[in-house]
């Protein structure tokens, strides 16, 4: 039971290149999230998904795209990499609440460190 697996762990991109950050979970949680953490800053939500086929924008969606065709996978796509996208990217998952006092711990992946040069 790996929880949340992110690949790759590190990547260097040239400006204008594209790439997909992979996120896979084995906990069957409905909610999946992509965050970025810039140096010295907090977590900013890029996109999230409440279930297969449903995605929504977070605070900083520009320059990114996501898809959620299965419960397990939530890839994040960068189409035209820019230096401003240099950051550490975290994928997270959380379950449905179930009831009004339900436990909603989120589990995070280990992160992908992306540098755009």
């Amino acid at each position, binding site marked *: 039971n790996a929880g*949340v697996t992110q690949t790759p762990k590190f990547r260097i991109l040239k400006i204008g290149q594209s790439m997909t950050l992979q996120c896979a979970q084995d906990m069957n949680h409905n*909610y999946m*999230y992509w*965050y970025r953490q810039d140096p010295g*800053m*907090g*977590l900013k*939500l890029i996109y*999230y998904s*409440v279930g297969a086929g449903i995605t929504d924008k977070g605070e900083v969606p520009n320059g990114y795209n996501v898809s959620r065709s299965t419960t397990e996978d939530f890839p994040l796509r960068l189409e035209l990499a820019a230096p401003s996208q240099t950051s550490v990217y*975290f994928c*997270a998952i*959380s379950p*449905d*609440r179930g*009831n*009004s*006092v*339900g*436990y*909603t*711990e*989120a*589990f*995070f*992946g*280990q*992160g992908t460190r992306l540098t755009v040069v």
Partner: protein
Amino acid sequence: DQQVKQNSPSLSVQEGRISILNCDYTNSMFDYFLWYKKYPAEGPTFLISISSIKDKNEDGRFTVFLNKSAKHLSLHIVPSQPGDSAVYFCAASAFHFGNEKLTFGTGTRLTIIP
């Protein structure tokens, strides 16, 4: 619109003393709150949580207090240890089927001084 706010970006505390990290929220629908701890080069890990039906929850050295009227929660660490040096995030969730996503604060970097 920052619904969860951690107004102190950093905090330094002497080893053995109490560390108090604060978090404010604006959305009155939030009814479940969590604290996460993050070391460099690692993903955040869950620390402690509290439901809005309680005002206090303890787990060893960690206690979370919730003041619903003030929309404020705090994390107390007693006694503080060097291994507690990390970035701490608070998060909140509202029970609303189909939209229960967690909202995170911006984090507070805690440094424990030996």
